[in-house]
């Protein structure tokens, strides 16, 4: 077996792996679009100690941080069809549950886990903005909404951004587990290509490269954005 790497396969499969990037990015984008506002709102319930929602967020964050994503995937993938079957049978809807595109499961799982991570990110970021900032904003006549939008959020965002970046990179990495839901992303596409001739080393090298490129670009993008946001940072003298 030590006949070295199959370079032609290595190059060909690189493009196969690359063709999975749009799905990966699509799932990542949807998860972030759901998680950013939801995570922020739930973080506010934590900060303001709103009775039931506060406890709910606490348990929710603890669960997501305490369980592996693959097991969250297993649970969603096994439970959603059961729940849907029960509902459709009750109302006699005619939906074929096993025809549902796996991408919907991916949206659910990754939005669910990213929201929890972002609750913590926003909570710690919001707690770095001193209460005086909000009070001062209100004192000069801004409404609560305006005070958050113009004063608190810009400052909190500067602190939150590096952690949002980490969360995004982790999310992109986590989508590689989409194979468990037969999601046609980077890892699954390249793996299927490798099944033909058992060129697994080459395939995984390609997957490895694609993720490194993807994540480095995302990190670089966040760095640029962070630089732009820096001007909002409160400088204590």
């Amino acid at each position, binding site marked *: 077996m030590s006949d070295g790497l199959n370079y032609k396969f290595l190059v060909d499969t690189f493009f196969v792996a690359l063709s999975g990037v749009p799905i990966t990015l699509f799932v990542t984008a949807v998860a972030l679009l759901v998680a950013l506002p939801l995570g922020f709102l739930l973080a506010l319930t934590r900060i303001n100690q709103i009775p039931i929602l506060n406890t709910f967020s606490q348990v929710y964050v603890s669960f997501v941080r*305490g369980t592996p994503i*693959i097991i969250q995937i297993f*649970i969603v993938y096994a439970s959603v069809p059961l729940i849907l079957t029960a509902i459709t049978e009750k109302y006699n809807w005619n939906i074929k549950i096993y025809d549902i595109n796996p991408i919907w499961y991916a949206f659910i799982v990754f939005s669910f886990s990213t929201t929890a991570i972002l609750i913590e990110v926003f909570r710690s970021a919001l707690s770095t903005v001193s209460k005086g900032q909000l009070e001062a904003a209100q004192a000069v006549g801004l409404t609560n909404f305006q005070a958050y939008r113009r004063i608190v959020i810009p400052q909190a965002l500067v602190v939150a951004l590096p952690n949002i970046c980490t969360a995004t*990179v982790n999310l992109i*990495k986590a989508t590689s587990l989409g194979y468990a839901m037969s999601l046609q992303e980077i890892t699954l596409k390249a793996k299927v290509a490798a099944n033909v001739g058992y060129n697994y080393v080459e395939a995984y090298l390609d997957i490895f490269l694609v993720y*490194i490129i*993807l994540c480095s670009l995302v990190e670089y993008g966040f760095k640029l954005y962070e630089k732009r946001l820096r001007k909002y940072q409160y400088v204590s003298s």
Partner: protein
Amino acid sequence: MSNMEKYFDASYIWSSFPALLPFLKITFLVAGLSIIFGTFFGLILASMKLGKNKVARKVANFYTTILRCTPSIVLLFLVYYGVPSIADNFGIYLHDIDTAVFVVITFTLQFAAIMSEVIRSAYESIEKGQFEAAVSVGLSPFQAYRRIIFPQALVVALPNFGNGMIALLQEGSLAYTIGLIDVVGKANLIIAANYNTHALEIFIALAIIYWILSILIEKGFGKLEKMFSKGKQTIKAT
């Protein structure tokens, strides 16, 4: 809802614990070895990052960046398929060694990257003056590290070390994909033996096991942190 009950039976959650829990041994063994080797390797990487050698610093930083960008499952398969075929080139046959070895190699590589950052940031959080003061009162550099720097850096590193351990435990759940029979592997075997019925209950049992373990680790590190920061005195006026 009667149909739902046919597919979901909560009693399966409880009855699967006795079958699953013994396999935590494998999970712990693999995680424990990865932590030991990873911490050691991470210490070397951290000293490369903190050292004066420019090349060593570049190499260590490059390693951390690459590892941070690689999904565990990709690294796992890369090691699983890659290590034996590299060994082939040197005439060493590694195709039938225990899968646990590949798992430990993978998570050692990953944990080392995490630890190198934990150690580096803990070290950098200690003021330089501490070391200088220790040396100026007559301690040897080694003594200064052991008695002054290390105890303080440890307190800073502990929470991050705990988070790293939780992350490792969770990423370790992927080891079943290369055939390790740990707690997740066993769960999948049980499900296969049940002809894929009652999978949900067993996955819920797995989630509960991991959840409790993570909480225990978190609580444990919280206690340790309190214990070690006992002697800590922050200087209020400088």
